[in-house]
Each structure stands twice: as C-alpha cells, then as structure tokens.
C-alpha cells in the first residue's frame, strides 16, 4: 500500500495514495463543506463533478484553488482549508449559487432538510452581494414527482442516479451556461417519458427542485368524510425509518408508535402491508414452484428465471426498457395492490360496505407506488384498489400536523385480520428479503419438510448483485438478487443473451431495497443510515413468533374463506396482473 504524507491546516496527515483531500481532512477532524458531492459506498453511487466549487481549498504552489473532492493527496502537499482567500471564495461562490435560487425557503417542501439551506447557514451567509436574473423553467407535476427546476443548482446528483446508478436515462443536463439545467428529453413532463418513478433523483436532490407529490390533504379529506371508511396499510420499510423524522437514531423500529399515531390521526383500521406480503409469497412462491416443476418435467417453453414483481419502479423499468421480456416476471401483483384488491372485496364484504365507500390509503417508502396505485388496471369501474399512496415523509408530516408527540406515543397493535403478519412479510423491506421470504415458503411447499433454519444469511447483504445456490432437498436452486436498476439491467441482459443460470431473481429498484426508497427520510449521503434500517428490519423478523408466510393464520383463513387456493381462479382474478409494452414507438 502506497502512503502519502501531507499537511492539512498545519496538521500532518498520512493517508493511502489515491485518497482525496476531502477524505484525508476528515481523518484529522477537518470537515470541508461540500454541496454537489455525494458518495454512497456499496451503492455504486458517486457524484463528484467538481462543479459547485464549494469544497475548494488552497494548495501551496498551485495557482488556483483546488476542489478537495476531486484532488488527490500528494506527498508533501500543504493544504489550507480556511485561509481568508478560501473562505472568501467559498462564500462568494455560495452567494452566486443563492443568487440564482428562489428565496422561497419558508414555503419550500425541503425547508429544514435542504442541503443548500444548511450550507448557507453554516457559512453564515447573511447578504447576497451579487444579484441578477434568475433561471426560470416550467415546473412538472407528474403523479409521483414534482420538478421545480428553478431550484436546481446543477449538482448533477439526479443525473448520476438516473443514468449511472439506475441506467434509466430519463434525465440529462440540457442547454449550456446559465441556461443549463437537468431535464428529460425535450423538457417533457416525466409522465410522458420512460421515467420509472423510482424516486432516486428525489432521494439525492440537495434542494427542493425534486420532491414527491404531496397527497396528505387527500387523506385528510377522506378521513373527515363521514360516508367513508378509511383504512391504512404500512409498508415494512416505513417502520424502520419513520423515527428519523422525529430525531430518533436511524434503525430505530417504531412499529407500535406508528400504529398508535395512525389511529390518532383518524384511520378507522390500521393494517399492515406485511400481511399482503405474506399473501404475495404464497402466490409468487406457488407460481415459482409451478414453473419450476414444469421445467423439471422437461417443458422447454416455460419461462425461467422467474423475476419478482413487487417493486413498481422495476415493473416500469422492464415495461419501458425490456418489453420483449414482459412474460418473465411473476404475474403476482405487488403487496400494496394485493392489499387493495383484498380490502375492496373480502374486507369490504366483512364490513358490509360498498367498495366505493372504503378508502384504502398506503404508507410507502416509495414514489413509484403513487404511480402504481393510479394504474388503470388496478381499478374497478374507476374506483382504484388503493386510493391514495403517501410516503414515509408525508406520514411524518401528517403526524406533526396532528400535534402528536411521536416519541412519547404508546406502542399499539395492528388491527385484524389484515394486520397480522410474519417475519417473512417484514423482510420485504430490504434487498434480499423478498426472495428469502419466498424461499422459506417454497422450500417447505416443495419438499414437504420443515426448515431447520429460517435465516438465509447467504441471501443478505448490500452488494449490488448477489447470488446463492440453495439445496431444495437435493435439488439445487440458483437464486439471483439485484438492487438498483443498473444491476437489474445486467441480469436482464444475461437472460436476454441466454446466459442466465438462475431459477429465480429478486429485483428491487432502489439501492438497498425499499429501505432506500425515494419516499424515505433523506439520508443526505450517509450510507450507514441505510445499513441501520436494514439491520432493524432483520431484527423485527427475528423477533416474530411466526416467520414463514404460509403459517400466517389469517392468510390461511383468507384462502379458506375467500380465495380458495394460491394461483387458483379467484387469485388470478384479484391478485395477478399482466404487463404492457411501453417502449416508445417511432412512427414514420
């Protein structure tokens, strides 16, 4: 290992060759401010265009100031991070950035969570000496994401997320100079593009330029409507992150407090998406075993590997980018939509109300869920199975609006029947979780034997693409896992080329899975936040008495009373879907 020695702010520093000045400074307690820079270790996300010039430092012997995020340490380098020259330059550059930014902080959705705002505060900017024309772009209100590009500071993080990490290619920098901004082709609105609504652009945006569409008011309208029964489902990843919005450590599980808060907000029933996740496993697991046994019987037509289909951004991705493969993913609907379908039939029947009078709200870590809920095929006579989908962040806002002291709320339990879930349902919230849950059930259904261990540690982790071969009582099953759509693309290209050896593949669009979803509390570039959320998810699983979906008593009851059998007639009608070719056709 090559070592370099340098001095930063008069302190000697020894680092490995290749270390940037920014990283080296951190080792001696010097925190150089950054703005465009963002690096998520293990998530293959690195954005350092060296564009904002906020992190500049003075390097002795160099004519100009150097961006510390892009400058590698050299032997004998003498660095000053806060000379008068540096501080003046940094503040002036910051003033310039602010001079082209709307002063709408008080009413901006990002206020209090904005990197630009907190940097301005840290630098003590009290006056902007350089004022002039501000950039104006048309704003874009898609069903999931709002783009107000007047607030864009050209950090390019969204572009990196959309192109390098997700390989979706919806966004690009356009124009040049003062007019440059990040936008879809021809500045179309997102819903006319190939956007998957994964929301990773929103997750990394430092300002309020990219935010989710706020649906909290719609929820409140439903709650105060006396004719409506309003029920809510909460996705597994929400409970592992919601606490962050109330100052709790990342990874603090707040399931009980969340249920309690939802009741106080006024929901008539508080249910768990985990219940529907268990249901998904029965449907998807059965489908997998069906395809597998056909394959083993010599059927050459059967589509393998089977791909999971719970992630709506992933569904959008293959509909836009790989429509020729739309027969491969499982036809099982996502847990959100299964929940909606069951709620509007089975549960509405139990309550003896019309489906139109039942309002299903979902709390999701996700922006694509907003889009998924609005898909035409998930509605009956115009009445959607899931009426409103809100994010973890929006729920936090509703809790604050309801004047609840969240951290002091008592722990409460979900309602029955759709609030009962197993550990398998919980781990849907992280990469590797869906397939682990599926394996727990598929193994027992296939072999007829009970698993002696339910923890499949070989499927867990944060690596972008993982694989494992599991022994199904003599039958080797090859499992693949990808999170991040760029990684998914690699596995899809393999399948397309006939090179894939997998029987089943789990895909989640967001890095880390749902815990890193576009609707979660902002991680501000701190990847440990995601890891702590993941740990919390596995903790909740380990603490559950029932950890296999097919053992969920309420799921069993649901099949007995209503559905019949997994992948049976009724299931097909309610719990399965089909996919569409959404590739843009060029007409001549």
């Amino acid at each position, binding site marked *: 290992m090559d070592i370099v020695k340098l001095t930063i702010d008069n302190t000697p520093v020894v680092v490995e060759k290749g270390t940037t000045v920014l990283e080296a400074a951190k080792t001696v307690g010097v925190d150089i401010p950054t703005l465009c820079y963002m690096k998520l270790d293990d998530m293959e996300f690195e954005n350092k265009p*060296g564009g*904002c010039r906020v992190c500049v430092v003075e390097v002795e012997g160099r004519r100009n*100031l150097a961006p510390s995020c892009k400058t590698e340490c050299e032997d004998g380098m003498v660095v000053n991070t806060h000379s008068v020259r540096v501080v003046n330059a940094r503040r*002036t550059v910051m003033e310039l950035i602010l001079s082209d930014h709307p002063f709408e902080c008080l009413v901006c959705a990002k206020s209090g969570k904005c990197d630009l705002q907190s940097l301005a505060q840290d630098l003590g900017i009290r006056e902007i000496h350089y004022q*002039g024309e501000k950039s104006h772009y048309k704003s874009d209100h898609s069903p999931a994401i709002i783009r107000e590009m007047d607030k864009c500071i*050209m950090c390019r993080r969204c572009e990196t997320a959309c192109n390098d990490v997700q390989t979706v290619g919806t966004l690009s*920098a356009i124009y*040049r*100079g003062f007019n440059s901004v990040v936008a879809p082709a021809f500045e179309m609105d997102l819903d006319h593009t190939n956007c998957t609504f994964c929301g990773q652009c929103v997750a990394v945006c430092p300002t309020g330029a990219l935010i989710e569409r706020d649906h909290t008011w719609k929820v409140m309208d439903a709650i105060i409507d006396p004719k409506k029964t309003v029920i809510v489902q909460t996705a597994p990843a929400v409970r592992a992150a919601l606490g962050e919005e109330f100052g709790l450590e990342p990874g603090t599980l707040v399931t009980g407090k969340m249920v309690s808060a939802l009741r106080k907000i006024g929901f008539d029933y508080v249910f768990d998406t985990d219940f529907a996740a268990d249901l998904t496993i029965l449907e998807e697991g059965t489908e997998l075993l069906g395809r597998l046994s056909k394959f083993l019987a010599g059927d050459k037509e059967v589509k393998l590997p089977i791909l999971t289909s719970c992630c709506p951004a992933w569904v959008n991705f293959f509909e836009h980018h790989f429509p020729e493969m739309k027969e491969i993913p499982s036809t099982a609907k996502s847990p959100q939509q299964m929940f909606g379908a069951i709620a509007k039939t089975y549960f509405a029947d139990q309550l003896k109300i019309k489906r139109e009078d039942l309002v299903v709200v979902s709390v999701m870590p996700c922006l694509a869920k907003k889009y998924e809920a609005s898909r035409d095929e998930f509605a009956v006579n115009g009445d959607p199975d899931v009426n409103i989908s809100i994010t973890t962040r929006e729920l936090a806002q509703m809790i604050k609006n309801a004047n609840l002291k969240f951290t002091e709320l008592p722990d409460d339990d979900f309602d029955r029947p759709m609030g009962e879930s197993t550990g398998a349902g919980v781990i849907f919230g992280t990469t590797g979780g869906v397939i682990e849950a599926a394996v727990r059930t598929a193994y027992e259904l296939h072999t007829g034997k009970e698993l002696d261990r339910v923890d499949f540690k070989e499927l867990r982790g944060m690596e972008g693409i993982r694989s494992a071969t599991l022994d199904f009582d003599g039958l080797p099953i090859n499992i693949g896992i990808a999170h991040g759509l760029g990684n998914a693309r690699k596995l899809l290209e393999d399948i397309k080329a006939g090179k894939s050896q997998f029987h089943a593949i789990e895909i989640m669009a967001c890095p880390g899975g749902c815990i890193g979803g576009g609707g979660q509390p902002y991680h501000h570039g701190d990847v440990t936040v995601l890891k702590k959320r993941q740990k919390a998810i596995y903790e909740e699983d380990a603490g559950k008495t029932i950890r296999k979906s097919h053992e969920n008593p309420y799921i069993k009851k649901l099949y007995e009373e209503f559905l019949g059998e997994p992948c049976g007639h009724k299931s097909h009608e309610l719990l399965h879907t089909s996919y569409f070719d959404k590739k843009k056709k060029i007409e001549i």
Partner: protein
Amino acid sequence: MTPEEVIDEIKRSGLRGRGGGGFPTGLKWELTRKVKAEQKYVVCNADEGDPGAFMDRSILEGDPHTVLEAMAINGYCTEASKGLIYIRAEYPLAIERLKIAIDQAREYGLLGDDIFGTGFSFDIELRYGAGAFVCGEETALIHSMEGLRGEPTVKPPFPSESGYKGAPTNVNNVETYASVPVILLKGADWFSSIGTEKSKGTKVFALAGKVNNVGLVEVPMGTTLREVIFDIGGGIKGGKKFKAVQTGGPSGGCLTEKHLDIPIDYDNLIASGSMMGSGGMIVMDEDDCMVSVAKFYLDFTVEESCGKCAPCRIGNKRLYEMLDTITQGKGTVEDLSKLRNLANVIKDTSLCGLGQTSPNPVLSTMDNFYDEYLAHVKDHKCPSGQCKALMSYIIKEDACVGCTLCARVCPVDAISGEKKMPHVIDQSICIKCGACFEKCKFDAIFIE
C-alpha cells in the same frame, strides 16, 4: 531518428503549445510516451474558437499536409496508431482540403498500415465540432469527440494519462503541429535561434480591428506590439489614436500604450495581465469604450460557458450584468470593488481554463482604464461616447437648416420641426441609433 531522439529534438527546440497555454511541446509528448497502454491517440485541436483568430484555418486550408505529418511523427513518438482531428464545422473549406490531404497521404503510403515498411502504422480521422468554444479546452474536446456534451473535467488526470476513451492522448493545436516538421527538417538549433529566451520560434497573430492592414502576421517571438501594430499593421485606421490592443481572445486582456514596446512572448504577456492565447490581436482606437469592450467579451463567455461549475455559470453572468449596469449609467463606485472581487473569485475557483481566464478582460481593463470605469459610475459619462444610455443626440439650433433629412431617417419619429426651421429630438423617444447623426450634412447634430 528514434522516438526519443525526436522528442529530444522538439524539447531542445523550445517549442511551446501555440493554442494558448504555452506548455512545452516536447515535454507533453514525452509524458504521453511514458504512459504504458495498448492504445494511444494523437489529437489535433482544430476547434479554433477565439473570435478574431484564424491562423489555424489558414494552415489547414493552405498546407494540411504539415499537420498530418506532425501527427504521424507524434504517433511514432508516443506509440499511437490513431490520429483524430477535431475541426470546427464552420470551416467547410478546411474540412474539404483535409479530406483530400488525408486521401493523398494514404495513396502515397504516408498514412496507413506499415508505413514505408517500417512496421509503424498510423491513420487519421476527422471529428467535427458543433459550435462550442469550450471544446477548445482539451478535456471538453475529448468529451465532445466521445459524443458527449463538451463539458471539461478536473485535471489531473491529464489527457496524456487518460484521454480519448480513457487512453493516453496527446493533444496539440494546429499551429503547434505545423511547427514540428520544420523543426525536424532544419534542426532544433535553427528553431531556437529565433525568438526570446523562453519563447522560441515564430508566432502567427491575427491582426484585426482598427488598424489599416488586417490579416495574419507571422513574426519572431520577441517582436514588440508597436512593430506589429504600426509597422506591419500600418497604424490606426483613419489616423485615430491608438487606445488598446486585446490579445489572447476572450481569455486575454487589453494592453495599452505602455505595453507597446514589450517584446511579445508567453511570459511577458502574462506578466502584463494578458496572454498569448491562440494569437488573436484586436486593435482598438480612441472611440472604443473599454467598459463596453469588457462587456462584449463577457457576453461571449456567458454564451459559451458550459454551465458545469457554479462560478463560471453564474459568476460570469453576474459580471456581465454588473458591466451592463455600469454602461447604463446605473453603477456605483462600490460596484467596482464588487466587480473586482467577483472577477478574482471566478478566476480562482472555476473548473477549467475558460472560467479561469474569462474575467481577464474585466481585470485588465480595470487595471489599465480605471478612469473610464470611474467616469461611468461617478459622472455617468462614457468618455468614448459609445454607451448609448449615457449619451444624447442634440441638434444645434444655429447649425440646423431644417432640411428634414434627419426626421425622415429617424426610425422612431423622434425628430420634429417645420421645414427650413431648426428641428428638435425628443429624448424620451430617441433610441440613439445614430442615423440622424450620420445623415446630417451640416454637422448640426452632436453627441453629449
């Protein structure tokens, strides 16, 4: 000659990059040679974007073979087998002639596989620019050749380590390459006998503006500005007074009377607050307002900034706006110190050479013509009478014969008056186009 001998010859000749930076050419070649790689590239920067400079075009149209030859020599030295010429699409004739020259060279076996049985193979392709000044910056140029937006990246790594398609790449401009064959033909000693201590050989300047003789001028390094402007250029047009000469294009600065006798070379120009650039030389006379000149260059930079880094993207825009305010007569003395601070910060923090030099026209005019700036902000006067907002056209009552010509040419009907009676200009309507001033046969209109 071995590759080492060639590089040594170039190094001894003292040739420095003619594209603006003045980096020693031999050293650049050596750096590219030293990097080990399967594939390397030789790139010729023919994206001559400095407005007012066209020496590269004249070389490419006049003698494209020298450039091809030099690129092949570079390929021989750096062990590259592929050359690329990045040329502006605005130069159709140069493109045409380059294509012919490349075909001819292939025909004669000067390009292609196993050239003259030496085992050395080299071929050249053309890549087109598409109207972006920033692509003259070598990393931006490389990105543009890769089919990307022409945005520069932070150096290091330099192209000699990681350039086109990530491979080591030697980038020189047209004029630099064109100097190579003659150095090898006549020897480093001959070349280095011309010029000054640190700048060897000759340099082509594009002389333009308010001089009698305009065009390309090739002079030995060390020639003074006075010789170029007054001896070769034949002095100022219309017998007017010399005021300033802008060298180095939009990145350069304005030099004045006191700089006229400095021998022109890379280092002297930088020491005087300007730069060699690619050799543009625009002469200005007493009628030119230096604040407006700075504003003109900033307008160019604002237009050509790629937008990647904040100081260049927003800072230059603000510089332009402040200069505009000053030329409108709305500036203050405090604005001048803000202007200087902003210019210095943009220089100090911008990502690439474009932003690092874009404030030069402002700083150099402030250094040399501070009085003019003061006149604009304190007295709200433009001493050269160029700033429209600060002047009025007035009809001298006693000189006006009432011929009505001025009223007829006025595009906005701001002039009124009876035939054979003195006319008047309504200042609230006048757009200061100057049509009346130019048409008046009786010198009855003056500018205040």
